[in-house]
C-alpha cells in the first residue's frame, strides 16, 4: 500500500489519541526526567503557543494528552529546577536535527517543503553518520534516535556534554558534520598538505562528509562561488571519490578550483543539520510517541536504526483505514 503523507483530519487525530496513543510509548529518557522538563503544545496547528506546561508524573501527562488531543506536542531538551518558569537551567540534551525537507543535497524530486521515501532515507544515512562520529571519535554514550515525522532527531543524554554551553555545542556540531575546512597550516611549513591524505582526526571526518556531499550533488545544486561549469566538472569527475581517489579528482579539477569547491562544500555540510537547534539550550522538540498531524506520521523512538523504516514503523493505524 502506498502511504500518502497528507494531513490528519480532526477526526483522525482524535481517533489516534483515543485508541492508539499510549503514554508507555513516551521514551524513558523523557519520563525519568519528566518533572524537570517544560512541555509545549500546539492545539490548533498554529505553532506551539501553549508553553510552560509541566507534569508531576506520567499519569497526569497521559490525562492531559488524552483530553486535549493536541495537534502537536513538544518537550524541552532542557532540564530546569523550575520548568514552569523555564528557570534554574541545569543541563540540556545535545541535539542534532535532520529534517528531510531541509537536506541541501536531496537527490529526490520533492517540491520545497515536501518529503518522500528517498529523502527520508537520505536523512537516515546522515543520522547514522552523525551517530558514528558521536560514538566513535567523540566517545559519547546514551545516544537516542527519534523519528520526528519528517526527519530524525539525534538526542544525546551523555552527562559529559549535557552541561556544555552554546559555544561548545557549536564547536561539537561543526566537528560532527564536517562543517569547517580543516586548518592545515603547520609548524613545518608544508604547503602541499591536503585534508584527504590525513587518515585520522577531524580531517578524516571532513573528507568523509565532503565525499558524501559531492556524491549527492545534482546539476541543480547551488554552491557558493562555484559556477555551472565547475559544478559540471565536479559531477563529471566525482567517480574518483567512490574509490577515494581524491588526488586524481583534485588533479582533474585543478588545485585552485578544488579549493574553491571545498570551501563551498564545507558550507553545504553546515546545512546538513539545523545548527540552530543544536546550539539552542532551551529548544522544545516533538515528543516521541505523538502525532505529526501535518503528515500523519508518528514520532517514534527508534530501537534499531538499521532496520527502521518509517513507512512500516511510524504509521498510525488510521492511515491504513483511509479509503
Amino acid at each position: 500500500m502506498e502511504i500518502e503523507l497528507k494531513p490528519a483530519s480532526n477526526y483522525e487525530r482524535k481517533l489516534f489519541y483515543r485508541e492508539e496513543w499510549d503514554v508507555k510509548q513516551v521514551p524513558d529518557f523523557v519520563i525519568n526526567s519528566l518533572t524537570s522538563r517544560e512541555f509545549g503544545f500546539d492545539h490548533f496547528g498554529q505553532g506551539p503557543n501553549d508553553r510552560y506546561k509541566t507534569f508531576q508524573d506520567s499519569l497526569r501527562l497521559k490525562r492531559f494528552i488524552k483530553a486535549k488531543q493536541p495537534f502537536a506536542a513538544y518537550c524541552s531538551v532542557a532540564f530546569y529546577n523550575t520548568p514552569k518558569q523555564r528557570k534554574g537551567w541545569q543541563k540540556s540534551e545535545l541535539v542534532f536535527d535532520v529534517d528531510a525537507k531541509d537536506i541541501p543535497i536531496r537527490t529526490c524530486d520533492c517540491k520545497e517543503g515536501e518529503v518522500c521515501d528517498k529523502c527520508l532515507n537520505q536523512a537516515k544515512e546522515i543520522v547514522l553518520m552523525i551517530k558514528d562520529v558521536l560514538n566513535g571519535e567523540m566517545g559519547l554514550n546514551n545516544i537516542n534516535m527519534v523519528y520526528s515525522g519528517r526527519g530524525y532527531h539525534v538526542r544525546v543524554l551523555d552527562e559529559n556534554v549535557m552541561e556544555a554551553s552554546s559555544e561548545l555545542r557549536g564547536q561539537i556540531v561543526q566537528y560532527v558534520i564536517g562543517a569547517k575546512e580543516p586548518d592545515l597550516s603547520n609548524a613545518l611549513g608544508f604547503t602541499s598538505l591536503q585534508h584527504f591524505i590525513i587518515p585520522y582526526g577531524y580531517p578524516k571526518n571532513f573528507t568523509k562528509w565532503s565525499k558524501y556531499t559531492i556524491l549527492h550533488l545534482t546539476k541543480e545544486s547551488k554552491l557558493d562561488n562555484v559556477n555551472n561549469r565547475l559544478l559540471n566538472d565536479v559531477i563529471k569527475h566525482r567517480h574518483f571519490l567512490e574509490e577515494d581517489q581524491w588526488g586524481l579528482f583534485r588533479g582533474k579539477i585543478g588545485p585552485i578550483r578544488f579549493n574553491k569547491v571545498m570551501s563551498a562544500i564545507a558550507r553545504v555540510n553546515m546545512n546538513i543539520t539545523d545548527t540552530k537547534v543544536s546550539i539552542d539550550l532551551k529548544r522544545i522538540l516533538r515528543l516521541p510517541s505523538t502525532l505529526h498531524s501535518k503528515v500523519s506520521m508518528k514520532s517514534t523512538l527508534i530501537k534499531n536504526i538499521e532496520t527502521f523504516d518509517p513507512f512500516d514503523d511510524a504509521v498510525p493505524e488510521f492511515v491504513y483505514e483511509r479509503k
Partner: protein
Amino acid sequence: MIKTPYINPFSTDAKEIVSKLGQVENLDKRNDSLMAIVNHTRGQNLSDPHTLPETLKDLALARFEWSLFRKSSEAQEKKYEYLFNQEIYEYDVVSFYLLCQAVAIKYGPNSHETKLVLDCEEDIISQRLELLKSESTDFQSSFLRKALNQMIDTNNIYWTELKEVIELGKLDLNELLLSDGKVIIEYEDFIAEYGHLIYNRDPRTMYEVTAGVELKSKLLLSLIRLYTKQYIETVYEMSKRMVEPNQILLDLADNIKEVQQKAQSLKYASAGSSNYIDDEPVKYEIEAFPPCVRKCMDGIKSGGRNDAIVLFLTPFISYSRLCPGIFSKQEQMMKISDIDPSLEITHNEIIPMIYDAANSCSPPLFKDQPQEKININAKLGFGMHTELKLDHEGETQWYTPMSCEKIKLHMPNLCTPNIDCKKIGNPLTFYNRKRRIMKKDNSTQQVKKDGD
C-alpha cells in the same frame, strides 16, 4: 636546563618557589639577586636604570607593561629583555602571582584589567615558547610533556575534560585528534592509534604536522590561561572575606591602572586623525559593508528572515552608524541615547534602513509578522513596545553585532566570505577595517592626482 616554572607557573616547583620567596615583606624590598640577573641579561638595554625592576612588585608591573607596549613601539623591546632570561624564573613566578592577586582584589575576575593580565601571561609564555623553538623538536616535545603533565595526563585525557579549555576559544575542538573520546597528544599514542593507517609517509612527520609540538604549545597556553582565570576567581572570592587587603597589592593595582591608561592614550594618539575607532556617529559608507550585510539588505527568503533582520542586521546597522568602535571601548553597556540623544539619527536613518531590508524580504517581513517591529525596538534597547520612545530605553539591552562564528551557526546561508573576510571575527570589524583601507586608497589617489 630550562626550569618548568619559567613556562608553567602552575607546576609543582612553582608553588614551592612562591611559598619560599613570596612573603609579603619581601615584595616591595630591593632585591639584589633579581637586579643582578637583570643586569647580566644578554642584550639587555641598561641605558635607563630607573626603568629596571628593583623589587618583585616592580617586576610584576614590568611584565604587564611589556605586554601592553610591545605592539606600540618596537624600540621598547630590549628594555624588557630580562623577562626572557631563563634565570629569572623564580622571581618571575612570584611576580606573576602578585599581578593576579592585585587585579583579583581590586578589579575582580570579570574586569577588563583581568583580561589584560590573562593576555599578558599568554603573550609572555608564547614568546618564551617561541624562543624555545631553537632547540630540537625532541627536546621541545619532552619539555612540553613535562610542563603539561603538571596539569593533565597527556597519555590519558578525554576531550570532555578539556571542555573549559575549548570554551576559551583559543583551541578548536577540530584541532584535537580524537579517538573514542580520548585526545591523542603524545607520539607513542599517535602511533598506537593511527600508525597502521599511515602508508608511504613518515609517521613522525605526519604527527608533527597534525599535532606535535604545535598542539602541545597551544594546549599549554590555553590551560595556563584557564588556570590563571580560575586562580583570579579564587583570590577574588577569598578577598571578599578579607578585612584589610594588603597595601602593596592595592598599590600595584593602581599602578596597573595607570599603565593601562597610558597605553590607551598612546593607542589613540597613534591612531592620529583617523576617526575609525571612535564612539561618535559616522556617516554610512555602504561600499564598506561586508557581504553578509549586503546580502541581508537585498532581502532574505522565508525561513531565515526573522533572525537575519532582527538579530543580525538591526545591531549592525545601529552600531555601524552610531558607534562603530564599540568593540575597542572598555564600557560596552551603551545606550543609543548616549550618542543620539534626540533619536534623530535613529528615526531618520537607522530604522528606515532596517525597514527597507525587511520589506525587500520575500514575503516582506512585516506583512505576515508585524510583531517583529517590536522585536527590532527591543534589540535597539527600547523594550518590547510598538513605538520607539526614550521613556522605554534601558528596558532591554542594545544588542551588539553578532560574531561571524555565530552567524555561520544561526544563518549559514548569509555567510559567503570574500577575500577581505579573512581573519575577521565580526562584520563590524570588517566595516571599520574596510573604511580605513578605502580612505587610504582615496588619499593616495588624491596625492597622485595632486602630483600630476
